[in-house]
């Protein structure tokens, strides 16, 4: 379970995240949507303990990330939007290192590494330095590494960027399977079709605040929209150029 209580992040006078409160129960896949710079990544990095909140708190499985970071992080698998890994480690060495951070080693770990490499079709590349990996391969390596320690909660920022359609499908199935077994996922994405198809509930973040939150049906009710797709809802809540305005832009 993830709980955010008045989570706030300020950089000087600029408020990137403004008193966000959310509860994501066990067994739920929650989508975080919003335009660029809305505060999604900052929120996720605060949950992962990378950034410290200016005010409020984030709890993972009931544990405050700032008060007891080690216990909270043991339950978390974080997948960032940009797949930075150690260039001079091989894929297998990187996974072993990540497992080591969670205190894992031994034959059981080696077996799991093999399984995950197989699952993400990285086995032929496992013994090669990650500097020769493509963006998508690095992304898959990070996803596989985040699953090594069998987390209770997964926080995943823009997971589909750089993935080929097969891997994207695999990840979708994996996350759905994870929540069906009682896991919790918070996922940010710009691909509204993916959010619509995968997420149990969605929050639309705009200007650091939650503009609307709930199931798709609840969002429609909240915004007094009819049976419109998520894209229309999103544009209505976050603002966007109409077809007429775009045409004018090209004509001027």
């Amino acid at each position, binding site marked *: 379970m993830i709980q955010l209580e008045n989570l706030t992040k300020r950089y000087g006078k600029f408020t990137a995240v403004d008193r966000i409160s959310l509860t994501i129960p066990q067994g739920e896949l929650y989508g975080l949507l919003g335009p660029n710079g809305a505060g999604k990544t900052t929120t996720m*990095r605060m949950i*992962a*303990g*990378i*950034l*410290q909140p200016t005010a409020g708190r984030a709890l993972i499985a009931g544990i405050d990330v700032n008060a007891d*970071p*080690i*216990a909270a*992080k*043991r339950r*978390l698998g*974080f997948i*960032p939007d*940009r797949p*930075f*890994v*150690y260039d*001079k*480690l*091989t894929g297998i*060495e990187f996974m*072993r*290192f*990540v*497992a*080591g*951070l*969670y*205190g*894992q*080693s031994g034959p059981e770990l080696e077996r799991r590494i093999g399984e995950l490499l197989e699952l993400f079709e990285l086995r032929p590349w496992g*013994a*090669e*330095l990650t*500097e*020769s990996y493509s963006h998508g391969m690095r992304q898959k390596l990070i996803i596989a590494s985040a699953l090594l320690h069998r987390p209770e909660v997964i926080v995943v920022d823009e997971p589909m960027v750089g993935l080929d359609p097969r891997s994207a499908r695999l990840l979708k199935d994996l996350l759905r399977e994870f929540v069906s077994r009682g896991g919790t996922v918070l996922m940010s994405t710009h691909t509204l079709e993916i959010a619509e198809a995968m997420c149990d509930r969605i929050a639309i973040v705009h200007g650091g605040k939650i503009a609307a939150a709930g199931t798709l049906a609840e969002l429609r009710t909240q915004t007094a929209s009819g049976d419109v797709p998520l894209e229309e809802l999103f544009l209505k809540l976050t603002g966007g150029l109409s077809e007429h305005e775009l045409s004018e*832009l*090209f*004509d*001027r």
Partner: protein
Amino acid sequence: MNFSIADPRDGSAGFRDILLPKWLSLRNRLRRERSGAGTRLLLLVLLGGVFWAGAFAVSYRVLRYFKGVEEIGPLLAGKLLGVGLLAFAAILLLSNLITTLSTFFLAKDLDMLVAAPVDWVWFYLSKLTETLAHSSWMVVLMIVPMLTAYGIVFNGGPLFPLVAAGVLLPYFVLPTVVGSVITLALVNIFPARRARDLLSLVALLLMGGLVLFLRFAQPEQLARPEGFRNLLEFIATLRAPSHPLLPSEWASASLMNWLLRVRDPLPPFLLWSTAAAFVVIGASFHRRLYAPGFTKSQEGANRGKVGSMGARVLGGLLSWLPVTRREFVLKDVRLFFRDATQWSQLILLAVLLIVYVYNIRALPLYTGERVPYVVVTLVVFLNQGLAGFVLAAIAARFIFPAVSLEGRQLWLLRSSPLDLRAMLWSKYWVGTVPLLVLALTIGFITNQMLQAPPFMLVLSTLTTVSYTLAVGALALAMGVFYPQFETENAAQIPTSFGGLAFMLAAVCLLTVIIVIEAVPVADQLQAWQAGAAVDFPGSLILALGLVVAACASATVLPLHLALRKLSRMEV
């Protein structure tokens, strides 16, 4: 705003357009730093001023001395300038080899520029200018005090700075063009990342060779009037720099001709015409080889499997450690030995140590005469200071960058349940244990060479251990306070402001240690001269206690502050 399709003949980017973003970035960075870091600027200006004053004072003194030597004085000054410019040209060539790889093949703006309608001539000239600026600014800083001394000693007049600038411009252009052509050829053979590793290694080997060559040439003989005969012999052996086809010789001749009022237009003509011809030749190489080279530079570095035998052995040796710490140490060791920009610095370390031991060997303690006890003790005592400085330089190279090298991967460490204290201590011991082994080895070898008295051996060993532990902590902590997360080349991290601040802190600690120990050591010597027995008196034990306390504070406090900073660090 108009989004309609433009006429394709409308225009293309020129020299100014390509370089403008670089200039604007530099200006914005300076503005930002000026507004936020007055102390930093002051410190840099102060250190720069001290360096310039020192370089000027040494050059001035040597040139005054040369000028006083009848007949051959100006010749010696000219030779010295020629040798200096030749050494700088070698440094420039090496620097250009590496810089070209970044500016022409690995820079982040290249995709945009290569995809834009930029004329190849402007592209070449602007990138060449950028390479020249990046690779030459440090040499310019070093050359200015030296040439100022020449201008003053030989009455160069108010126009001398302009003449010097006119001579130096083509002198700087030549190694830039040569370096860019060599790198262009290399990139067409190897992928760019491989070429970078190769070039880093070659550059460091050559740089090390150059330092050893200059040291073994025994320049200290220049400072001794009685060694003047040797100086003449020394210059006579330096025939290579007198070769008429070397541009450094043309530059030196142009400057000396101006200073000695000799009218000879040939050296500046040769310099300018050769530089112009080289730019044209370089441009034609660029036109033919750049496109295939740039394509090749997009390839990955290494698709081969890597060996892990060493790591397996080390893993076995470290099996007693908890898994998190063991994996952390293994990761750091693997990254160090697989990154040429990191391990190749061991070459510089070896050169530094050879020169250091050679310097001890070259002391006039080995002339065959019996050296007084007082002198030996003093040299051993001062050797502590020198060894301390060498250890600080090594810590700056290998321990200071430790946190910066985590760089973009810090997200992983921060989001995992890794105890930051464990990470910091792991990095501390990984860096400090080899440093301690090295420090004790240097101390043992040099003390043996100097035949140090027993009380100095004890003092020196205990001081070395305490100081090394403190210097390791200071280096690591300064690396946390001044991280360089964006730097890809590990060798550049110690040259940052934080590296400088660390060296200053280490020198301050060293000064404190020497001041504390100086009094009891002096008392010991006085007692010896008075005929008293030399043992290990209370004042020395007290001094040692103070040194250990100072070093313990310089170990614990920085690490404590670093841990606090690290836990608040946002990436």
